[in-house]
């Protein structure tokens, strides 16, 4: 590809990666479960967009179209649909009930973003595509972990895990410019699908046994 095309691709990817970060921060502050699921779908859509751009502009990366397609089908449509159904079926209330309030969470996540940039700094020369994509990937990882610990409801923890996974996929594309070999991408895709189903089964059983989805009630085992 020529340099102006490459420049365009790089800018588009940076834009979409920044969008993923913004959505992650929105997930940290907002309080409704169904909105969280929609935000996750939107974030995945941006990831699929990045993959599609890579596949379009890069000469020997036809297989990245597969990644884009699978992300679109799996994470933009199927998983949000599945999680929505689960939420409706177990009829939980919508409020997310975080441990830390949104101001403190936001401040903390600002710190995580900074940390992400510091960790990624020595490696910016290795980024093949976009600017600061590795920093964003690491930030997604850190804020994903924070989301997991800051949420009491089982389903929101699942969502947090999925955003971490989005971060990994972003890192894979950013650092290699053509993602990982197709067999690995396929394997990861199916693992994620199965993981959410298994987690769904567990959430359902926890809800039935504890008549609640509050994981802070899971605290009998000690020592």
């Amino acid at each position, binding site marked *: 590809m020529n340099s102006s095309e490459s420049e365009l691709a790089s800018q588009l990817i940076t834009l979409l990666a920044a969008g993923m970060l913004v959505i992650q921060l929105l997930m940290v502050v907002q309080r409704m479960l169904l909105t969280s699921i929609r935000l996750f779908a939107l974030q995945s859509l941006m990831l699929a967009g990045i993959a599609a751009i890579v596949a379009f502009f890069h000469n*020997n990366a036809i297989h990245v179209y597969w990644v884009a397609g699978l992300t679109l089908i799996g994470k933009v449509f199927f998983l949000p649909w599945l999680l929505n159904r689960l939420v409706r079926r177990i009829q939980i209330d919508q409020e997310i009930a975080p441990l830390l309030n949104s101001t403190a969470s936001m401040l903390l996540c600002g710190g995580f973003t900074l940390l992400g940039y510091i960790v990624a700094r*020595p*490696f910016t020369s*290795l980024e*093949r595509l976009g600017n600061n994509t590795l920093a964003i*990937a690491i930030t997604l*990882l850190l804020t*994903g*972990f924070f989301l*997991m610990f800051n949420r009491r409801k*089982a389903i929101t*923890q699942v969502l947090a*895990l999925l955003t*971490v*996974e989005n*971060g*990994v996929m972003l*890192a*894979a594309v950013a*650092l*290699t*410019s*053509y993602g*990982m*070999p197709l*067999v*690995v991408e396929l*394997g*990861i895709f*199916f*693992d994620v699908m*199965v*993981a959410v189903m*298994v*987690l769904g*089964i*567990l959430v359902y*059983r*926890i809800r039935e*046994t*504890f008549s609640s989805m509050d*994981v802070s009630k*899971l*605290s*009998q*085992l000690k*020592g």
Partner: protein
Amino acid sequence: MMLLIPILLAPAAAGLFCLLARSRPAMGLANMLAFGVTVGLGVMLLRKVIEPPYVVTEFEEFFRADSLSAWMVLLISVVSLGTSLYAGQYFRRDLAAGVVTAGRVKEFFVLTPLFATGMFLVVLANNLGVMWFALEATALSSVLLVALYNRKTSLEAAWKYVMLGSLGLALALFGTVFTYAAAVNKDSAMPSFNWSHLMSVAGQLDPRMIKLAFVFVLVGYGTKAGLAPMHTWLPDAHSEAPSPTSAMLSGVSLKVALYALLRFHILTTACLGSSFSRTMLLVFGLGSMCLAAPFILVQTNLKRLLAYSSLEHVGLICVGIGLNSPVTIFGALLHMGYHALTKPVLFFAAGNIHQSCHTLQMRLIGPGIAKLLPVTAVCMGLAAVAATGLPPFGLFFSEMTVLNGGFAAGHTFVSTVVLAALLAAFCGILYQLTRILLGVPKIVRTKDVAPSAGAPAMGLMLAALLVFSIWLPEPLLQVMKRAAGIIGGK
């Protein structure tokens, strides 16, 4: 003749068969048969990898087995076979007592061979990405096994297991991606993600990236291997799972995660040429041993006691590899094998006690299990003696080998700490178990007591332990020496 693909297919086929089958004895038989076949294939593989070219590859190098993989295949298949021998009767008694439904038992017989297939894929995959998703598959198949009893506590254990496990695996995936990125050149086409390929170009990989990758992988796979301080899921999952599953988790699953970590350790050492990764292994190994010892001393729950003992053994294996002399690495591999034969016996015995006494709290169980369940008590006593590292059992030799090698190589401080932790665990386990095994039973329990329960499985594994403690066949010795050479970078 194909070897690796049949090893993967046999348990997968058994899992599928159990999904379709209706009769429970047939399901148990299918499990036993599949793992019997894999033991046989494992022995054949073992004989093959000690002859030149020392590697078996299949399917265009997609599957690859060297001595280290062959050793792991053998461990996985032997522990799985022992588990399937024990599981049939165990669940028959559970069903009779009404603590589990027929559907759940079927779930066990379907998921266990799939769990094993995942572990076989981890050790036979050449591609590091494939290794990752195989490990994730083992986590996903075992989490429903942990939740099998559907008690409040087992759901809690399963949730912690799957959440911490997934977090760990997400970190490991980051590490895996970084490793791949280290191999990417600016102009070339997609490089191969095979471990063997990365090893051949280890000198050209980006060292900073490899370093970062190893840190992520260590924390990630270390979580799955139960290294402290990421071990918190381990005692919960091991104590709440049905005993056959506890045996698989402790006997091999931890070591399979450790195997994945070792592959990265070998690669990192080959790339950096420094002691970076082995020092990290040493630190985490020592940390796990030191943390496990006090928990063993004050433990009140029988299966949690065994789980912490596993943590300690995994720590010792890491220390052996971290010390990085040929002797200590050999000792660590030997220790893996002996521990895989010992720990399932202890969990089987704990399962029998649980079914007879309906509790795992040691003050409610004991004293006097020897009178109540003589066979179980004898097996448990022997296995406990073995697990604490007393002769004539092999764990004595492997622990001595690691300690000896440590002192000989001048790591006096490390070796002293290891010795202290081993002694603490020794006292803890023997003290706790003699209290429940010996003495006069306080209460007479007549119902639900099955005196000879699980005898074939426990007897077989103990016999194997004793035989291999005294006599190591030449091919086995060869494989371990070669595997130690691979880890040591020779």
